[in-house]
């Protein structure tokens, strides 16, 4: 049964090409996307493309954000100002006491992602070499 009006196969292909191009441009290098894909990995386990993409997202999302941020309070007047000051002091104390721990965690996260990526690249290289070798053997061009 053919589709009248819209060629949905062509449209999906066009969108995939567009997404590939944007991915190269870094449009989707976003930790939020990595988080969104956590339930998709099980279905897309056979997709090399998704795995590569997910590893890229991980690189972006691997660091725990320990930078300062703007502390605000919706309440007006002295009450609001007082609360902002109190929260600022609490944050500074919290950061002082936990900085070392977060810093170490970030180092571990970064090492794990690097190890995962290296392992993936090594496997990919080995598979490519094996596939090339098999193709040569099958075509009888091997020496």
């Amino acid at each position, binding site marked *: 049964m053919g*589709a*009248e*009006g819209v060629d949905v196969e062509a*449209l999906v292909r066009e969108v*995939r090409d567009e997404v590939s191009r*944007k991915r190269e441009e870094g449009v*989707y290098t976003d930790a939020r996307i990595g988080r*969104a894909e956590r*339930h998709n990995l099980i279905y897309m386990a056979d997709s090399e493309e998704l795995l590569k993409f997910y590893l890229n997202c991980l690189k972006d999302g691997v660091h725990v954000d320990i930078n300062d941020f703007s502390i605000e309070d919706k309440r007006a007047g002295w009450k609001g100002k007082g609360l902002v000051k109190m929260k600022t002091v609490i944050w500074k104390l919290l950061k002082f006491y936990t900085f070392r721990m977060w810093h170490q965690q970030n180092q571990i996260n970064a090492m794990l992602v690097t190890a995962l990526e290296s392992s993936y690249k090594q496997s990919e290289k080995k598979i490519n070499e094996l596939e090339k070798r098999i193709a040569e053997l099958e075509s009888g061009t091997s020496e």
Partner: protein
Amino acid sequence: MKLAFVTPRFAVEGVVGGAETLIRDLAQTAAAAGHEVQLLTTCATNPHTWSNDRDPWEEVVDGIRVRGFRVKEDRDLGVFLGVQDRIVKEQKLTRAEEEAWVANSITSPELMSALENEIAELDAVLVGPYLFGLTLQVSEAFAEKTWLIPCLHDESYARVGLIADRFRAVRGCLFNSEPERDLAMRLYGLGPECGGVVGMAIEPFEVDADAFARKHGLEGPYVIYCGRQEDGKNTPLLFDYLHTYTERRQGAVRLVLTGSGDVSIPEKLRPYVLNLGFVSEQEKIEAMAGATAFIHPSVNESFGIVLLESWLAGTPVLVHDKGEVLKWQCQRSGGGLWFQYYPEFESLLDRLIEDSELNQALGQAGNRYVRSTYNREAIAEKLFDVLEGKIHAQ
């Protein structure tokens, strides 16, 4: 023909799943075509307790003689759940364990006895869905006259040896879609003579596309999902994707939900969600008609009734690439698009929101497809072509 349909629960609006709705609809189609049709079911209405919620009864509904029989209540739930747990973990079972699982599943000795008394006069027994003890017992006792309406999914239950035997032993199967038939052929080593693709009739309707937004004071585009909100339907993926989409697009779309479930909605997505729970059929189709898209992320469907309803409401759909049946419906109709991962989802949803001409064209293509493929006459023709042996799998 004299036909008996058998299903564990009788479909009353809003209280049963898609499979029971489909079986009731097929019975209606057969009755409307002038055949003598009866439907045998149980007194249970709650799929969690499977207790006899009402007394045995008999009534005529839409030209179908419907009878309710008591379920066997003294089943050994411990044995049933113990084996079921091992099935879910895909552990190897002995034949005795499989038989114990069936015997302690949902069964009705009274229904079996009534069928036994009448089987000689019947031309065919049509029973489903596949994973209930009642279905498996009917398929064994009356195999030569049984047509299985499996509503088969690619899941651990489908790999139970005893279930494979039933598929091989029955007269044939009535499938809802080609991917479902292909799955049965793949899992059980069946040939194309194993049955035919029928589906069910979807009644067309006209609906005011603005009524829902007016009633709920909604402004701007919204997408919709109707049905159970659970892991098996891949709802967590929908919530995660919409959460990310609303963050990256500064809340450019809202999500309307109907149905129930136990999946929690991410806190930051909640301001963009209108979760209505169970609503009337009228409100559901009004909500569908006003939506930018119906999103169905499930990868485990045998038919996709809500997808077809959405098209009748003129709304295009977005489905997951790995949902074989739903993607097949989109490819056949030209009424929907499919995504593999978030970036594709984002890009497709952007287009559906921004390009109203494309949105309308997809919705209209879906609408034409449902009206021509799933009207009652077409379904009756397919059903009796299969039952009378005129066609096998298409």
